[in-house]
């Protein structure tokens, strides 16, 4: 966690029982969530409600019900005051083709409250930070997708926001462009000290950049926890043998270990529930006694992908009685 004082200060974002309906469609369903400063990944499938949540945090959309507070402001009624301190990068391209990056970003800075002279100076600064050199004086219409995304990031940080809301910032980028964009985002969060909420449906992206993760699905909170929790060791030991799996299963069961059914290479691996113990010697001795060719013995780790698997989900929700708590 970046901010050691997070526990003693009000959270950056506080969402309470937030519901948003579009006609009959429920985009957000009684979502409750606190977000502390840092780089927070907001993950969910397309249509999970990520963009809707960001727009409500900005005050671009009004909640149907519930309460939202961002840095102490109510976005719905104090939007113009709040937005002086927030940067936003929408998921779609949103740049006019006929003006230069310099002109557009400087205007963006002024619209966020910077005096004209400051806006000009900071425009030069942030465009250099995102890596736009000479081309910044040319019309945006001639830019590559990667350059446009850089301009979109620049317009979001030109006014030195306290909070940056990024909606699918690597949309349409090639792998190299994607890596550069993620690098820039991480730098913005760590070196520039700007709190970031990064919405993405790409788990790898979130894993690479974020230190905290909020997962939503169908407008509801799945889980909110530090990134380390998601990649922590699981309570499962996987044992793989060249042959004789059935004998091994029988032998392990005879020594009182709980064997799990399910995934892995079906006739070669055995999954054993650790149940808090460390039966590594027992497993080794069993394999040795049976004279089986051991390939590996590995303690499982969670991956972010597990988050969206039903069994892990059930485990996560049962072991986390207070979703969203982070203090």
């Amino acid at each position, binding site marked *: 966690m970046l901010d050691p004082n997070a526990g003693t200060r009000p959270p950056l974002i506080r969402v309470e029982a937030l519901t948003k309906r579009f006609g009959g469609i429920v985009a957000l369903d009684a979502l409750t969530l606190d977000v502390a400063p840092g780089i927070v990944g907001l993950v969910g499938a397309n249509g999970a409600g990520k963009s809707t949540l960001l727009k409500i945090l900005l005050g671009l959309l009004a909640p149907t019900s519930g309460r939202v507070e961002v840095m102490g402001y109510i976005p719905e009624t104090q939007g113009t005051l709040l937005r002086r301190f927030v940067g936003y990068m929408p998921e779609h391209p949103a740049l006019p083709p006929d003006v230069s990056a310099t002109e557009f970003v400087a*205007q963006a800075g002024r619209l*966020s409250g910077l005096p004209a002279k*400051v806006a000009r100076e*900071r425009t030069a600064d942030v465009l250099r930070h995102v890596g736009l050199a000479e081309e910044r004086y040319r019309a945006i219409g001639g830019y590559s997708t990667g350059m446009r995304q850089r301009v979109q990031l620049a317009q979001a940080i030109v006014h030195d926001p306290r909070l940056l809301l990024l909606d699918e910032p690597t949309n349409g980028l090639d792998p190299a462009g994607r890596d550069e964009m993620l*690098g*820039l985002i991480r730098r913005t969060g760590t070196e*520039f000290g700007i709190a970031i909420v990064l919405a993405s449906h790409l788990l790898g992206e979130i894993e690479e950049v974020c230190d905290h993760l909020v997962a939503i699905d169908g407008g509801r909170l799945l889980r909110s926890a530090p990134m380390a929790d998601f990649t922590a060791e699981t309570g499962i030991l996987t044992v793989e043998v060249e042959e004789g799996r059935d004998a091994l299963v029988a032998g392990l069961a005879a020594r009182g270990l709980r064997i799990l059914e399910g995934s892995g290479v079906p006739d070669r691996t055995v999954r054993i529930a650790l149940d808090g113990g460390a039966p590594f010697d027992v497993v080794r001795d069993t394999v040795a006694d049976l004279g089986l060719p051991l390939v590996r013995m590995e303690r499982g780790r969670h991956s972010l992908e597990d988050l969206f698997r039903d069994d892990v989900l059930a485990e996560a929700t049962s072991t986390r009685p207070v979703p969203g708590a982070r203090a």
Partner: protein
Amino acid sequence: MTTGADRLTAPPPPPPAPAGSIYDIGYRGYDGPRLGRRHAFATLFVGGLRATFGLGRSGRAKIIPAFCLALPALTAVVIVAMSAFASRFGISDLAVLPGHPDMAGSTGTFVVILVAVQAPELLGRDVRYRVLSLYFSRALLRVDYALAKLAALTTAALVVLLVPHVILTIGAVLLTSDVLGVLGREAGFWPAIVGSTVVMAVAMAGVALVIAAFIARRAYATVAIFAVFIVPAIIVAVVLALELGAASRYIVLFDVGTAIDAANAWFFGVAPTEVWKIASVPVAFGLVASIVMAIGSCAILVQRYRTIVA
């Protein structure tokens, strides 16, 4: 990124472009004043005004605004030149020459061209390229955006309308030996000039922006704006010619151009256009109709931007 090394086993990535490197000079924060809505409004207004005249845009974008600004001005210069020519023959006041009350008629055409071409430019661009979401995520309200654009186009129309009047006044003062007398006479015109041009500018800019706000495609919006300024005049002429009865004469109130002409006649206290005389509706009704169009279009525009998806 340590993962970069692992990826090198894959096909070699393209070499990073020189522009892609990050210049490491450190980030500077900002702790100075953060201004509010008024500042944002002024920024949008000035930006819109510059865009209307094509300033900061390509040379091609300057052609039509320059044409709309120059031709009415040129007309006024020609009038001044002719009256200078006449005065050499001892004719101090050539009655056949157009004066201040006649300017609206000739300049109006160029204002129609300006608003028809630039209103879609001011609004359609931000919708088509989805820039609105970037504007609305800043320190302003949706209504600020709509009113700033309206103020920008109105001001541009006002400039086009006022320049010929200014030239006529300056010309009249320069050409006379009785400077004080002429200054007094010209000063008498200016309340009517200001009143008529403001009503005209707001009504025309407002109507054009309302149409542009509903038609994102620039070409279609421009055609639609021309149609709204031209087609009703034809319908009015036909209806009046058919002599459908007393009530039908009030159709003149629904034509922007005719109503504005009547408002102009009201301000200057001169006879209205032929169409208006045939309709024999009081010119004050034309003024009221123009003001209703101006205020109504502002209201529709604001309402449109309150609900537009960004």
